């Protein structure tokens, strides 16, 4: 085993170093990026540094990735490297379709698993193996319109810190005559709804497999209050985070819960003083939690170029300090970001990243997520009480997990 590792390390080092002229290597890479975005930029730079490596990129639409990948694997036409969204790692890893990177990482001088933040590391870990390297991360926080805070007599330097304060602020800021809702968030019946709701459950002591807690019930009841009292638009039920935050940018919502991907558009469109704060917690001093988004670079188990593929993953990891400024994600590992753009927002999201928790892991995540979405939607539409809705979801999830 040791000799194998040494050999692997040696091969990786040789392939990674541009000084040697080697046999040409071709790597197939699937990504959700379009040309000009992360994978395309990185692959181009890597190919320039390593002329013997050719990386063939293919863009797959984000919603199609799991389907296309599964089909490609079953027909033997899967790529060497691909992007996978966090919660899907377990689905593929549990079937032995991803390469366990643990030996490669142990032998690597560049990737050190201890430097990866706990949330992102958990998202690529399945039953003891590490099946991917996060390409970056994102999380959610509370955006707020400081001008509206001032107009409504609230202190723009003291954004809401607890759920009660959030509710009060939303009540004060809501102004139907001017078409302003206090808060925008997303309770849509898709993965985005789960993504937004799970942190509320987690910071109140529950998790996806422990939904019938008082805290979770309180969270769902509070969400329902936001809708029932029209502090948030009823369209929250059918709107994703991007569209919800669009209403914040246009001045029709005073606060919005979303992630750093909003910043480029917000800085261009929002003609007011927008700021970011950590997600409010259930009560003063409560544990913090936040969502963990973005995806991972993984190597398929049946790749015929695992060493060359890992060398490219090392290169990607080595450039983690660039992801915020150039590509709009947060670093998933402890790196120094010099001169971050939007420094205040970066500071908040970077802190929030420490509390970001993984969704799952479970190979049946789609079913679990669906049960949570059903709970959210049936409670918010009044078809079930928050307690009943969560109990139903728990029943489904317990069946799936066990």
């Amino acid at each position, binding site marked *: 085993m040791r000799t194998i590792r040494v050999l692997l390390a040696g091969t990786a080092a040789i392939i990674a170093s541009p000084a040697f002229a080697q046999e040409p290597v071709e790597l197939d890479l699937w990504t959700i990026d379009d040309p000009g975005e992360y994978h395309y930029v990185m692959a181009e730079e890597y190919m320039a540094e390593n002329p013997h490596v050719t990386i063939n990129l293919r863009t797959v639409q984000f919603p199609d990735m*799991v389907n296309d990948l599964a089909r490609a694997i079953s027909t033997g036409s899967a790529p060497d490297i691909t992007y996978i969204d966090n919660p899907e790692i377990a689905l593929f890893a549990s079937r032995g379709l991803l390469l366990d990177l643990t030996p490669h990482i142990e032998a690597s001088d560049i990737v050190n698993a201890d430097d990866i933040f706990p949330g992102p590391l958990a998202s690529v870990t399945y039953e003891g193996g590490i099946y991917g390297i996060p390409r970056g991360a994102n999380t959610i926080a509370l955006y707020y319109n400081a001008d509206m805070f001032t107009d409504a007599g609230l202190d723009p330097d003291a954004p809401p810190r607890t759920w009660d304060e959030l509710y009060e602020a939303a009540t004060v800021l809501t102004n139907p005559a001017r078409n302003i809702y206090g808060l925008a968030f997303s309770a849509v019946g898709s993965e985005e709804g789960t993504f937004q709701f799970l942190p509320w459950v987690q910071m109140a002591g529950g998790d996806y497999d422990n939904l019938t807690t008082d805290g979770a019930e309180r969270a769902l009841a509070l969400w329902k209050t936001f809708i029932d009292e029209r502090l948030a638009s009823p*369209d929250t039920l059918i709107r994703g985070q991007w569209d919800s935050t669009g209403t914040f940018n246009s001045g029709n919502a005073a606060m919005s819960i979303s992630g750093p991907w909003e910043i480029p558009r917000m800085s261009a469109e929002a003609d007011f003083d927008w700021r970011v704060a950590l997600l409010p917690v259930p009560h003063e001093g409560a544990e913090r939690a936040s969502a963990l988004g973005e995806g991972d670079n993984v190597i398929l188990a049946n790749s015929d170029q695992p060493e060359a593929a890992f060398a490219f993953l090392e290169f990607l990891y080595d450039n983690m300090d660039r992801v915020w400024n150039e590509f709009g994600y947060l670093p998933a590992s402890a790196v120094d970001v010099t001169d971050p753009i939007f420094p205040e927002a970066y500071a908040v999201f970077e802190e929030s990243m420490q509390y970001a928790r993984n969704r799952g892991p479970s190979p049946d995540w789609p079913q679990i997520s669906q049960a949570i979405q059903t709970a959210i939607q049936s409670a*918010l539409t009044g078809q079930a009480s928050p307690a009943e809705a969560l109990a139903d979801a728990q029943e489904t999830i317990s069946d799936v997990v066990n």
Partner: protein
Amino acid sequence: MTVPLSTTDSMPTVGTIRASGPSFRDGRGLDRVLVWLTLGFLVAFSALPLVYNVVMSFQSVDLFTIASFDRPFVGLDNYKAVLSQRATGTIVRNTAVFVGLSVALQLTIGFGLALYFQQRFPGSTWLRGLFLAGWIMPGLVVGGVWSWILAGDFGVMNWALQATGITSDKIFWLSDPSIALYSVIIANVWVGVPFNMILLSVGLAAIPDDVYEAAEMDGAGRIWRFLTITLPLMRAQLGAVISLGIIFTLQQFDLFAALTQGGPSNGSNVMQYWSWELSFQHYRIGQGAAVSVLMILVVICVAAIYVRSTRHEHAA
């Protein structure tokens, strides 16, 4: 005087044609080729996928076994799972309401417009053609337009209703679970009316004017003429339009994807969208196949009724 060709003279000629056997250009040879081509096409592109779908509905299929035929058979488990879900009742009821209301409204409005344009006023054919624009547009585009019209906070519809004082509160067309289905129906009726109108216009044009003139001379009023002439003579067209309407409506997927995604809380979910959700969002492909088999059964019944009703028409 030349003797006319007797029957005996012409016999050998007929004989030679028969003896030459099936020719490729004419006769049975070509018939056979045409039949086999059509049959081959139907088998390859309709029957096989259909059978494959039925087989999948009895198997445990997930994403990773989609390309192999060797999958465990689970009997009726998929059907049981699909039928025992809490959402099933709502979704089946939604589907019935969606199809029933859509077809009824499309037919009524389409028939009304067809009769209207039958009046042949200046520009009537031109205007009738313009109506088709809605039908030509892709479903996702129509869905996109209607989602702007029906948007809760900033939609044109709410603005118009409030400006004219019809409602004082905003109606959340797409996010209120008791209304969302009807919003999709409104959009679907808008899409389907032109097609109904054109088919029915063709039928109306085929009714000879003198029948109406004769009835008018006999003193039959407008309504009486409609009930005793138009309706009975339009029977075949109405049957076709209703059957096609049901089938098209059961296929309507784009509007759900664009407007509500079946939500909120399955409030506007219908079987065709549910089947897709099960297969490609929850990866329970066997169950998705089971739902589509159930839908195929409905479509077969509709088609059977249609064929029976038109056969009766031809016989009469």
